[in-house]
């Protein structure tokens, strides 16, 4: 493999590399710098980041604005609740089961939507209806705890059991590990594989993508499967941490929308955007709590803040935190590449037929 340092040929990439390294270093030592409750906050922040990121795989990269990822989140949570808490199956196995079920569901949903030629609006509406149906089923099915949910039972502890009772550091580092591995994996996928590189084309113009030999329906379904499968992991982690799972806690539309909105605010289609936005909202929540705002109102205020921010972002077309960051860095440091010479405007021949050009 060629020298990776050659990749750092623009100021933006160099700045980003520095920031990422610093952030990673900070994340690694963070639990040693703060009291245990704050480690829990850190865990939640990383969890928000993780589920925003996994949503973004289908939502931002492929442009499938799905409100069904909450079903994946819920599947991960219920999987560990049913398999591990009730039947003492190892939590990691439950995690994998959750991932597999969610991936299959995601694959099928995307296939169905493609087969029936569903456009973006109906995709959002349909996935919303589906997730509400799932919540309703969970609320009325004793297998899934109906309205009361399923409570934790178990005694094991440690990484092999994905559970820590007193010190949240275990959860924190596990989530950090997932986040780092998944981010690197997806980045590599997007850069090095035909599948990953085809996704922006599918997003922008599926017809052109198909004419470039991209198998649009298949890739969309695979992306959705990957996206929902990975989202399930976040559900499993939060279930182990909170130790109770019910339709009201893991199958709500609010969480489903938060994943979407978080990615958009951070910058849909970027790597870091969803992560930054996820951590940001956790910080905001903690900030509000520190002002002795009641916990019910904290979640209300953050929801309102989220909504207002994304509305303003979309209204003024600024594209999110990461695009703003990139524009800012470029403004301060320059682009680092010689701007290409624009060819002189010679006399043009030929008809601009139907005004289609440009």
């Amino acid at each position, binding site marked *: 493999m060629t020298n990776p340092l050659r990749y750092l040929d623009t100021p933006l990439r160099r700045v980003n590399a520095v920031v990422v390294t610093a952030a990673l270093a900070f994340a690694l030592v963070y639990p040693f710098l703060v009291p245990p409750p704050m480690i829990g906050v850190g865990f939640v922040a990383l969890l928000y980041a993780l589920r925003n990121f996994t949503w973004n795989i289908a939502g931002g990269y492929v442009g499938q*604005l799905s409100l069904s990822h909450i079903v994946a989140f819920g599947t991960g949570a219920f999987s560990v609740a049913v398999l591990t808490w009730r039947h003492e199956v190892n939590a990691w196995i439950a995690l994998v089961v959750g991932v597999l079920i969610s991936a299959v569901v995601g694959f099928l949903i995307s296939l*169905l*939507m493609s087969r*029936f*030629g*569903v*456009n*973006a*609006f*109906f995709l*959002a*509406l*349909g996935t*919303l*209806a*589906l997730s*509400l*149906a*799932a*919540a*309703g*089923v969970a*609320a*009325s*099915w004793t297998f899934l705890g*109906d*309205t009361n949910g399923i409570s934790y039972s178990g005694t094991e502890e440690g990484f092999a059991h994905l559970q820590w009772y007193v010190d949240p550091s275990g959860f924190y580092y596990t989530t950090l590990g997932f986040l780092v591995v998944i981010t690197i994996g997806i980045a590599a996928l997007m850069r090095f594989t035909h599948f990953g590189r085809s996704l922006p084309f599918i997003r922008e113009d599926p017809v052109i993508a198909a004419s470039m030999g991209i198998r649009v329906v298949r890739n969309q379904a695979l992306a959705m499967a990957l996206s929902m499968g990975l989202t399930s992991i976040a559900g499993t982690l939060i279930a182990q941490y909170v130790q109770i799972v019910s339709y009201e806690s893991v199958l709500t*539309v*609010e969480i489903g*929308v938060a994943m*979407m*909105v978080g990615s*958009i605010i951070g910058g849909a289609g970027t790597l870091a955007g969803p992560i930054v936005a996820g951590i940001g909202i956790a910080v905001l929540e903690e900030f509000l709590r520190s002002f002795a705002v009641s916990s*019910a*109102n904290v*979640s*209300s*205020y953050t*929801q*309102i803040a*989220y*909504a*207002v921010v*994304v*509305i303003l972002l*979309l*209204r003024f*077309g600024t594209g999110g935190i990461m695009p703003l960051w990139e524009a800012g860095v470029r403004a301060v440091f320059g682009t680092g590449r010689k701007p290409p010479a624009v060819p002189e405007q010679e006399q043009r021949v030929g008809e601009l037929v139907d005004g289609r050009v440009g």
Partner: protein
Amino acid sequence: MSTVLQLASTGLLQGLLYSLIGIGLYLVFTVMRVVNFAHGYFVLIGMYGVLSLGPKGFLPFLGAIVVAAAGGALVGYLVQRFLLESGLAKGGHSQLVITLSLGIAIQYLFQVLHPEPFETIPNPYPFEAFTSSGVTISAPRMAAGALSLVLVLLVSFLVYRTRIGTIIRGCSESLNGAIHVGINVRRVYRLTFALGCGLAAIAGGLLLPIQPVSPALGLELTIKAFIVVVIGGAGSLWGTVAAGVLLGLAEALGSLYAPGTFATALVYGLFFLVILVRPQGLVVRAAARITPRKSLTKVGVG
């Protein structure tokens, strides 16, 4: 048997209210192609609006509804003018996320302002429940159904038999044609959106004495509005009415067989299937029905 009759009557009347809620969404969708995910939350504005005004008596109640409707219409106008308009020109899916987020913001705003769930007001009408052949209908429900029907008729009259209605329909058919004839399309869009939201708020006011309000109701009503529009939208305005009544009946009679949350889950699941099968039907056929068959200067019969 009387249970069935009772449920059917209740369902029918509730369905008329759903039709009213759906009509507003239908107008916005067919005229402007805007997907208003916040529509059910405007119903909520109506409900909380009337609740806050705390009317005592029938006329104050009507007055409160008018005020709440005006408020809802005003908010709708502002939303269209300042949030949605620029995005519509650009295309893309911003209106989807904007209206969805708007709904959530409204929900949590009411969550903060009215932390107590399930508030309602007592019967504001000057008559009590109506009983006949084993069927009892409460006054608010009777009135809501009747008033919804009246309002739907009024809207139908407005859209199909007035000059304003022709203008609105003209915008839905051909944007270029409308501009060409000198119609201020932006103003029409703003008014249509305001009208849709205002109708939703009125429905909310009518709904309040029947169903206790809580912020989460917004989402449920939004979905129901979409169900009504997607299923009924293939016909004219009246298709929406039929779909609303159908929804009300299905909901009421369905409660006989499947309890609470599972029944709702079934409804959503069925809705998902409908979406798969019908998405083309909504835009294509609805546009065909709402358009005038004669020229823009003549008022045609729909």
